[in-house]
């Protein structure tokens, strides 16, 4: 499947792009991040500590073990600091 992946804040800065299309068969968000980390160091660096990351699938907060089946858009970002 083709996923649109979005990055925000320091994750965006480390990956170097705000969004990209990725072809993947990853079953979960964790698998997707592992797959990307295996491809290039900048991913491995950005995703080294999952506890410092949050994830949304199709604009809803999700977990790292949330399934990607049917997803179109995945976003990876640090804990939010609104308000």
């Amino acid at each position, binding site marked *: 499947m083709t996923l649109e992946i979005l990055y925000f804040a320091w994750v965006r800065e480390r990956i170097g792009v705000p969004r990209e299309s990725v072809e993947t068969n990853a079953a979960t968000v964790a698998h997707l991040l592992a797959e990307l980390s295996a491809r290039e160091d900048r991913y491995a660096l950005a995703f080294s500590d999952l506890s410092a990351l949050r994830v949304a699938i199709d*604009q809803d907060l999700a977990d790292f073990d949330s399934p990607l089946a049917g997803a179109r858009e995945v976003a990876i970002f640090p804990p939010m600091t*609104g308000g």
Partner: protein
Amino acid sequence: MVIRVQAEPFDYGQECASFAQSSKNSGAIVTFCGIVRDNDDASLSIMQIEHYPGMTERALSRIADEAQRRWALESCLIIHRFGALRPSEQIMMVATAARHRSDAFAAADFLMDYLKSRAPFWKKEITANGSEWVAAKASDEEALTRW
């Protein structure tokens, strides 16, 4: 329920006035306004606020829906800015209207706690010495356990 996510400044006084005007039968109005506070050494040049267009509006609407489900609100308003803000600029506001003050207070407090940690905004402080992403506070995450 009104949700606005915008780069432009908003007029807090005018928003309070028109919110109260449109909630005349409510009895109790609570508003909160968040202002960019300078660092203790007055070094803050810009607070850069990034957000996730689309998800932001969706997350704010859900938080407001949840507040309306939990408390007897007659109306509620959330305005949140993004982009480059200077110290003393107003970042965001919420307003709640209810028949009774306890509902208006609890709902506004709840909205703020959820906005802090569950709405997709990220702040970066830019000073003369460089820039740094603001880390989420453990106390903000803990605040959610109150509800």
